[in-house]
């Protein structure tokens, strides 16, 4: 008996990647985790206005969601949630970038969510690290983000909206979905989005929304580490594909 959308517990959603879609930007990418689509655009490095703090470059991130990216129309513009997520994505990306080589310059990263089905920050971080790499910014590694979590009593990876809102008490009254309680177990959902530097096996962010025991947390984080290498391979394949698919002119 599989999950709500038919996946196994350690199966990520289908990933698809498009690179360099905005010709005027230094680098851009769309990263899709199933129905969660994130577009990232990198502008810069460009001249900073102030010479103070020239020892290090400045990384700015702006995260936003399109009004029609969610089922119920979202008011355009940044609110509390968007400002917070911008800061989180910035903190996730910063350890990977050699900012000390870009003293006094500014790198702007714009993350736009085109379609949301849980896990927007992880898709946003993945898209942003692809766009940064395409812009030629020196990096330690691609930053790979993925969500792990505990739904009911089961550890799963890459939660979708349905799993994020899981509550066995509510599902009991639903004739169609009550059968899933058998698979997930009693309880609510815990969501842990993480960002990872795969080559160093280090986490750049770990967030926790819900409750989880120490043992299960360890298990979940190890699962994320394992899967991040898999996601990195998919991202690498997409980049190599872009360079190999360029055709020579006909002579």
């Amino acid at each position, binding site marked *: 008996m599989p999950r709500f959308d038919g996946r196994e517990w350690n199966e990520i959603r289908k990933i698809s990647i498009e690179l360099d879609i905005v010709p005027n930007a230094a680098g851009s990418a769309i990263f899709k985790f199933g129905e969660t689509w994130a577009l990232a655009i990198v502008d810069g490095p460009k001249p900073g206005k102030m010479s103070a703090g020239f020892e290090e470059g400045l990384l700015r991130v702006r995260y936003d969601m399109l009004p029609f990216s969610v089922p119920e129309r979202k008011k355009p513009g940044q609110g509390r949630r968007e400002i917070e997520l911008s800061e989180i994505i910035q903190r996730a990306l910063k350890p990977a970038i050699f900012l000390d080589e870009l003293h006094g310059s500014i790198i702007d990263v714009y993350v736009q969510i085109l379609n949301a089905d849980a896990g927007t920050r992880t898709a946003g971080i993945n898209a942003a690290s692809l766009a940064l790499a395409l812009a030629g910014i020196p990096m330690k590694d*691609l930053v790979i983000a993925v969500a792990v979590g505990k739904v009911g009593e089961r550890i799963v990876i890459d939660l979708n909206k349905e799993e994020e809102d899981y509550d066995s008490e509510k599902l009991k009254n639903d004739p169609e979905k009550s059968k899933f309680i058998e698979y997930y177990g009693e309880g609510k959902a815990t969501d842990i989005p993480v960002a990872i530097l795969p080559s160093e096996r280090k986490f750049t962010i770990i967030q926790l929304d819900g409750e989880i025991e120490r043992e299960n947390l360890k298990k979940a984080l190890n699962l994320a580490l394992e899967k991040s290498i898999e996601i990195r391979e998919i991202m690498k394949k997409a980049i190599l594909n872009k360079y190999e698919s360029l055709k020579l002119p006909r002579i």
Partner: protein
Amino acid sequence: MILIPGDPININKNIKVIGDFYRKDDSIFAKTISLFESKNFLMKITPLNGIYIPKKGDSIIGKVIDVYANGWLIDINSPYVGFLLVKDATDRFLDVSKDDLNNILTYGDFVLAKISNVMKNKIINLTMKERGLGKLDGGVIVSISPKKVPRVIGKNSSMMNTIKSVLNVDMIVGQNGRIWIRGKDRRSELLAIEAIKIIEKQSHRKRLTITIKKFLEKNKNA
């Protein structure tokens, strides 16, 4: 072979590695999306895209973006801006309190200049007081990724000479990724731009000079 940031590179002590990479413990890793080549005892890691970091002695093509009382602010296609002082721009005697600097260089002018000094806080001083440097009149400017400049010039300028001789155009390649082209007619200029754009896209391929030569000769009389 193409590497992405974080890809490990296998080395032993006899092999010299040049290019863009970083060390951690005893191993080395790629820093940008780059092309990996190894030949005998040399490994080369060439970035495929990136920005221009000014170096002392580089010849660059800059654009005047501001005129001050004592010089010009020059955009050098980099995270930093260049500054050209009056004394480094002209041999003429100028009284800055009476003369108008706009008569020498003004907004939007392109200049070929050399980087004379890079300060610690990335103030870039430029000079035009050397042979061949100065304002660029006529022609067209193309911008490419600065990391592709060595490919446009080619080994011993082979690529640049091919474009110059086949199309009969003047061409100056700035280290910052700006290229100035002046031909007898607009057609040859446009063809040169097209060739440069092909080089930029295909820079990781081998035998590009021959491809470009064939392309230019075929389209020259079309």
